[in-house]
């Protein structure tokens, strides 16, 4: 990476803390973020499955949507139905392309109070999401990403260790959202994450973030980077934008039909998505386990009886299972239990279709 590139990258409020821990920093979605710390990706992965880790996910966007018509706007723009939840809850939802129904971004919405929503896009999509929400009378839309850090504390011991930092933050329910005060700073916690383990995500004002991070580490939580975040989310079969979701990929193809509420009224992208639903998807995301330690990788071809029928979207070695795992688009007639293969640079690697996730909560 040249200096020129690194200067253009955004840095988290925790940047200094990561460097002092000896993190390997890499570009990700326009930010420079930790790939791993001294112990490495596998150790961080295993710590999340058996103990507790903290990820800096400040590169996620926070777009604050406020006003008397905010609820109505989000109902029209996103696929999921906010009337299924209430203030103080979080919801996973999609922003679709109005023309082809493909997923422009996958988003978590934190419903803070009746007229205040924190919409959290992927790093590189924050402007796109802000653009889709702006321009409605009675709704204020503001990108507040710069103002805070987000620390995800995940793992079976996450809540136990966080309890010594803040008791309330440690007890927030799954997919619940609550405000809390820490050392005089107004913070927000949500029972959400991206690892397949229990845990929480905390939004901390930028100027307090470093002290909060240090307090969390002092409580026995180990730092973990993007490398472990990726292997963890893959074992949990959670989609990553740019791989399992993105332009050209609809929620139905990705097996995420539950994110789409057909009966809430019209929303952006509903018509083309409904047309796809009626004619049937041409491909579907499936979970594959492969033989041996060799990792399948994104963009490798999936074979059925020697013929190319699909493509791997994400693949890696599963630290918990000890063999390769992959998510892949395959024809809709491929079923759980089917035998396929992945073309790993000319060598066919035996693969079997399984029901996701690959690894269940510890």
């Amino acid at each position, binding site marked *: 990476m040249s200096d020129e590139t690194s200067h253009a990258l955004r840095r988290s409020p925790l940047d200094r803390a990561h460097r002092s821990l000896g993190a*390997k920093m890499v570009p990700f979605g326009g930010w420079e973020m930790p*790939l*791993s710390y001294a112990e*490495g*990706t*596998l150790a961080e992965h295993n710590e999340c499955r058996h103990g507790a880790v903290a990820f800096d996910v400040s590169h996620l966007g926070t777009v604050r949507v406020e006003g008397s018509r905010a609820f109505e706007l989000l109902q029209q723009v996103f696929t999921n139905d906010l009337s299924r939840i209430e203030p103080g809850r979080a919801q996973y939802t999609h922003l679709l392309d109005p023309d082809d129904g493909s997923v422009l971004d996958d988003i978590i919405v934190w419903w803070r109070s009746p007229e205040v929503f924190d919409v959290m896009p992927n790093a590189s999509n924050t402007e796109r999401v802000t653009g889709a929400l702006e321009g409605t009378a009675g709704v204020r839309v503001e990108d507040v990403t710069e103002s805070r850090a987000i620390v995800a504390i995940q793992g079976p011991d996450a809540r136990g260790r966080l309890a010594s930092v803040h008791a309330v933050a440690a007890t927030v329910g799954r997919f619940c959202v609550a405000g809390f005060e820490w050392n005089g700073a107004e913070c927000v916690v949500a029972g959400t994450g991206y690892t397949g383990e229990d845990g929480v995500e905390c939004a901390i004002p930028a100027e307090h973030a470093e002290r909060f991070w240090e307090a969390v580490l002092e409580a026995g939580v180990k730092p973990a980077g993007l*490398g472990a975040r*990726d*292997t963890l989310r893959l074992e949990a079969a959670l989609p990553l934008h740019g791989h399992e979701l993105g332009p050209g990929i609809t929620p139905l193809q990705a097996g995420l039909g539950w994110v789409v509420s057909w009966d809430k009224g019209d929303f952006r992208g509903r018509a083309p998505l409904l047309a796809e639903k009626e004619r049937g998807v041409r491909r579907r995301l499936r979970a594959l386990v492969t033989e*041996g*330690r*060799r*990792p399948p*990788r994104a963009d490798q071809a999936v074979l059925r009886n020697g013929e190319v029928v699909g493509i791997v979207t994400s693949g*890696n*070695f599963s*630290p918990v299972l000890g063999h390769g795992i992959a998510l892949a688009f395959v024809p809709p007639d491929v079923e759980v239990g089917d035998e396929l293969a992945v073309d790993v*640079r000319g060598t066919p690697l035996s693969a079997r279709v399984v029901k996701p996730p690959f690894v269940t909560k510890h």
Partner: protein
Amino acid sequence: MNVPDDLRYSPDHEWARLVDGVVRVGITDYAQDALGDVVYVEVPEVGATVAARDKISEVESTKSVSDIYAPVSGTIMAVNTELADHPELLNEDPYGEGWICDISPSDPSEVDALLDPDGYRALIEE
């Protein structure tokens, strides 16, 4: 980064150690650090003939795959079978237990043409 004084190095980050007419080959500390946690190593076949800079192995980490090249021409005499179950040896002991293969060189002078430790240090400090 550890760059032992008794080894020779390729510009592709392999090391070569000539002992009793056989060249032992592995990847450098710099290479294993750049790769991150190694999860799979494909070793060459014993008896195969290779030319210098032929691809002889693939090393896969949690983040990427890297090709390993023969630093010298010759015949593969032995491979490190421990790597099948313990690819992490490349990270833990790249110059020792994490060796990849032994090559019987067809032209031992090729070893002298590799980078010396100072040359390799200069390369990775660029």
